[in-house]
């Protein structure tokens, strides 16, 4: 366990592991080896799509936890995002003929609404020192209740009608590159945008002053305070950011790659917010590692289709459980990675 942790701590090792993974996938794609049938360009495409909502929420949650606030409400924010995205697109178009413009405006609306909700949540957590675990669970319950409720008010049932989603964008020239072209440059722009966001999140967190503030707010809030930075302001910013990112992740599910809002059972988000939390733990609070972990869970999500193509037919009720089992294996195997030392503690200045 401790060796696994030490391995993950070492950034060079992480890059090495990622590089080896890419090499193995490439080998399986181009050379006919046992297991090659499982790795196809189509499978990678589906895995990248499935990873997108998880990665967005996970990067948001990572920032909040790095700054000392455990945002366990990601799942709830994703439900709100999925609902608001579908609702705004549908209302803008008046129910019929939703265009790409409507969808992109809906994404902006999701960011705004999630931001407002996350601000309220942040006030409860930071100003009123609410129990972070309980309040986060409450956000999930509120989403589970008001999500399908609002859907029923709008559409007469807990799910929306079938809606269009964001079109694939084909970048001239780049789309011609074998494999990579189809995966990134002739695909949903959301896939590529999410990768850009992951890289940007890495740069900001580890290479800018603001990123150091975030880290200090979680590791040593007293020192940050002494340096004249308002700890709680940093935390407000990260919690609001995490809510916006989770909301966008939810919207990706409903109008980005999916076809509308589904409100049956635990809604279409179906545990992805929880998986996102594990993704950033597994990624050891590194946005790039987090993206890799999201990709792993996304691939698990899509494994059913792959197993069918090679003739293994397991019932959907069992294959649908793979991501959850993977989460358990990851949590038990890697254990809880080193949590920022001030997570869960509210910070009061000494004046």
């Amino acid at each position, binding site marked *: 366990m401790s060796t696994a942790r030490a391995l993950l701590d070492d950034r060079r090792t992480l890059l090495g592991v990622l590089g080896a993974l890419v090499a193995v996938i490439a080998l399986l794609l181009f050379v006919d080896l046992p297991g090659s049938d499982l790795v196809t360009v189509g499978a990678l495409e589906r895995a990248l799509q499935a990873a997108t909502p998880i990665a967005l929420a996970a990067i948001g949650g990572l920032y909040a936890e790095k700054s000392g606030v455990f945002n366990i409400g990601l799942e709830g924010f994703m439900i709100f995002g999925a609902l608001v995205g579908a609702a705004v697109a549908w209302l803008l178009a008046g129910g019929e003929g939703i265009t790409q413009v409507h969808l992109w405006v809906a994404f902006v609306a999701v960011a705004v609404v999630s931001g407002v909700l996350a601000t309220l949540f942040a006030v409860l957590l930071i100003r009123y020192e609410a129990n972070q675990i309980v309040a986060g669970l409450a956000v999930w319950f509120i989403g589970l209740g008001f999500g399908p409720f609002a859907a029923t008010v709008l559409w007469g049932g807990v799910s929306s009608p079938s809606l269009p989603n964001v079109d694939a964008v084909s970048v001239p020239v780049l789309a011609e590159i074998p494999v990579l072209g189809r995966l990134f440059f002739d695909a949903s722009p959301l896939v590529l945008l999410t990768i850009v966001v992951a890289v940007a999140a890495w740069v900001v967190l580890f290479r800018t002053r603001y990123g150091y503030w975030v880290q200090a707010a979680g590791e040593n809030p007293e020192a940050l305070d002494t340096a004249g930075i308002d700890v709680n302001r940093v935390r407000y910013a990260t919690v609001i950011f995490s809510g916006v990112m989770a909301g966008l992740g939810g919207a990706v599910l409903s109008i980005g790659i999916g076809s509308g809002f589904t409100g049956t059972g635990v809604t279409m988000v179906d545990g992805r917010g*929880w998986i996102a939390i594990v993704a950033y733990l597994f990624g050891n609070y590194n946005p790039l590692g987090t993206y890799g972990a999201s990709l792993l869970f996304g691939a698990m999500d899509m494994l059913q289709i792959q197993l069918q193509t090679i003739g293994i037919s397991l019932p959907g009720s069992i294959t649908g459980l793979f991501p959850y089992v993977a989460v358990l294996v990851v949590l*038990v195997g890697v254990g809880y990675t080193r949590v920022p030392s001030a997570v869960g503690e509210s910070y009061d200045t000494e004046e």
Partner: protein
Amino acid sequence: MSDAATGVRSLADRIAARMLDASVLERVVIALVATALALLIGAVIVAASGYDAVEFVSSLVYGAVGNVSNLAFMLRQSSMLILTGVAVAVAFRAGVFNIGVQGQFVVGGFAATLGILFAAPLLPNSPVSAIPLLALATLLALAAGGAYGALPGVMKAYAGANEVITTIMLNFIASGVVYFLLDAYLRPEGAAAPNTEQFPDYVGLPGLVFESPSFSILGLGVALLTVVVVYLVMDRTGFGYDLVTSGYQEPAAKYSGVDPKRMIVRTMTISGMIAGLAGALFAIMILGYYSDPNTFPTFGFDAIAVSLLAANNPLGVIPAGLLFGGLDAGGQYIGFTLDVPSELVDGVIGLIVLFVAAPELFRAAGQYTSLGGDRE
């Protein structure tokens, strides 16, 4: 250096002050205000969605206690919520966030079902057989629920896996696996729905006071008895003392010789056993067969709200469970009669949890309006 020391000191002072402040009366007030505020927001949302808010509230009350059959339904839901609520309270009290009561409940009910379906043909087809069958079902439910609770306990104690996440994953896994087994092996030939066959007629709890096919006052009795037993164990035994101490004073518990890892596993096992018992009651009293767990009511999640509202006190779970049983019954009634989607009540329950999580909010409001007296 001295700054850090005063920091720790003031933190300890604040924690101590918080403990003393949190009197029973204050908790009751917070619970009531949180519920009232959540209902108020619910009513505003109802009005904003174009429904009649006054009718919403009055129907909510009528649906809970308006007539004898509504009351029976409410008490049925309350029995389940009290039982699952105690399961949550045991764990939360010990500082372990068991969000997996729903999964333990599903697994316990499934084990009870298997016991009844497989043992019934071996026993004479007479009401006397009900007693050994019910005993067997209860034992299996306790064992299965306990084991399914112990699993995340072991993961937390010995591998450091966060129990909030593992138990939520195990909820999904329990529903998926039980559904698969029902669908593949227990569905009678030619049946369309993934249900097991009906239990024999004599397996069930007699209605007694209420003439309801799915509620027996004995079910409520089981729930209340469990509450009393848990309360006595927590309040009067050394084990209970260790459990509660582990919850808010782990170093002290450790100092007095408690092994925190074993305590976590034990706590989760007990919590899971109570959840499993709730599953047996659900299968025997309410269903009379077993079905796709994804369609079950989410007692195990609402139980979290019940326990928090009761400040994780086993005795407090009784009024909190009655309140939530009423909300649940009223919400379903509204769904049938007013066309107001019953999910609204789930949202209101979420708001209650949110407000209960932030007692400081009410303290601040109390100070602002100077209702809370002069503090500081």
